[in-house]
């Protein structure tokens, strides 16, 4: 899932300062699962902002809504009749969600209430960790199911570097060395010799380096237009 966390309250307060009527819009998908922008977080943030605006002597109208999936037009349509009556929308979805709101409702000011952090999973209650960097060219088959692009601090393809110590990365004792894990897993599988192959320089053109990415599938486009038999 996409993992996000709420921006500091002070930053949000400064962002919404110029506006009087604000709709806080949560998202019922990834950010609900990671407790950053679901119904509960929307309620808590909206009430904190209401309280703060009263304390500051300028009570704002701050309302709440949750869209099941902010990244799909159909779901955003569920708030289309509401958005017009607000000065700004404070999105508690990921960066995709906030941009979808801005794109779907061009007349509306959409503000980000979250920092979108990474694609990852819940390691344990209250702890999330990155797992995928969306490089567009998966190599998990070569690395024992552990991604060095996302999980090695240097995205090395032929690690580990000299900073690997006791299974930890040189950047922090809190960070596992991805290549230490890869070597150990391949050894357990009896496939260590696979790591002796030199991984050549990566083609980053499928990653963000190739420019903004887009996938077009004609089969689906045609189907939607009813042109298939």
């Amino acid at each position, binding site marked *: 899932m996409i993992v996000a966390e709420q921006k500091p309250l002070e930053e949000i307060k400064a962002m919404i300062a110029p506006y009087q009527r604000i709709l806080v819009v949560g998202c019922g998908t990834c950010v609900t699962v990671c407790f950053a922008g679901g119904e509960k977080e929307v309620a808590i943030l909206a009430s904190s902002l209401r309280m703060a605006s009263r304390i500051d002597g300028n009570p704002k109208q701050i309302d709440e809504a949750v869209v099941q999936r902010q990244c799909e037009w159909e779901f955003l349509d569920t708030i289309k009749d509401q958005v017009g009556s607000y000065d700004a929308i404070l999105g508690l979805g990921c960066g995709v969600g906030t941009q979808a709101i801005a794109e779907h409702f061009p007349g509306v000011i959409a503000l980000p209430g979250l920092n979108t952090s990474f694609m990852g999973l819940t390691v344990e209650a209250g702890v999330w960790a990155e797992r995928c960097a969306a490089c567009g060219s998966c190599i998990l088959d070569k690395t024992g199911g552990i991604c060095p692009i996302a999980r090695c601090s240097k995205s090395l393809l*032929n690690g580990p*570097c000299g*900073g690997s110590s006791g299974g930890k990365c040189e950047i922090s004792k809190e960070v596992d060395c991805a290549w230490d894990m890869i070597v150990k897993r391949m050894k357990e599988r009896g496939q260590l010799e696979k790591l*002796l192959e*030199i991984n050549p320089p990566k083609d980053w053109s499928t990653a963000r380096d190739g420019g903004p990415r887009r996938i077009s599938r004609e089969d689906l486009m045609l189907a939607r237009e009813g042109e298939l038999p």
Partner: protein
Amino acid sequence: MSDGSNGWKSGSTLERVLKGGSFVITAELGPPKNADAEVIRKKARFLKGYVEGANITDNQTAIVRMSSVAAGCIALSEGVEPIIQMTCRDRNRLAMQADLLGAYALGIRNVLCLSGDHQKFGNHPTAKNVYDVDSLQLVQIVKGLRDDKKFACGEEIKGVEPRFFVGAAENPFADPFEWRPLRLAKKARAGADFIQTQLVYNVEKFKTFMTMVRDLGLDRQLYILPGVGPLKSPGMTRYMKNEVPGLDVPDAILERMQKTPKEKWREEGIKICVEIIQQMREIPGVAGVHIMAIEWEEAVPEIVKQAGLYPRPQPPAQAPAG
């Protein structure tokens, strides 16, 4: 070879002395955090005549310093052969190859390919890192420029190709220990001509590493130069022992520094370094040592002399047959 290289890969002094079979000495020359050429010249004068090559660090520990190519060029003008370090942290494959072409055009003949310390440790921790390629892939690229006359993309170099003696690093004390010799094998296969290691204080553990290296036949595929370095004080020794990941300093060495009176710290540090060099000379497969006297370049001549390694051998003019 049919490429006009007279049988040498690069023709550098480092390459020629190594191929000639003499015990090689390299040292480290850290560029300044300013634009003062005189700093390089002064350090180079300490090293001149005592080493076959001086590693010019590349934004070491992710701190901005004078570029290794520029500083290397200044060292060269002082008669010290540079081994320019190049990290994968700060440049993509375009910038790396551009700098390699420039470095060669300026007379530089040795390059050491490194991953580079993470920028988190340096003075620009908010920087974006590059890591377009890793150190092993950089070795492949530098070798490809020389032996295949091709850029990383496969395009042919029309005209003069850069012919570097290609180095890489290895840390025999980093984890996983059993993987280190195998990674060295990968570096040999990628095309590394020589290896310089992280500082070695635990000679016994290094011997174990070298046994694994020899079992893989790697000592016959590349020249191995373990890193050695003089300790300045018990404080520095303790710091290196406890705080630097991947450094292994035995208790006995720390105790020895602690027992030494303050006015003799540096003398004792040099003595320990010389003893380690003597032990290294006895280990089969060790082709020389790399002396890392960080911000203490003037210690190098003393170490070389005390180790009985001065004067330095003349590099052979002709490449050995075959």
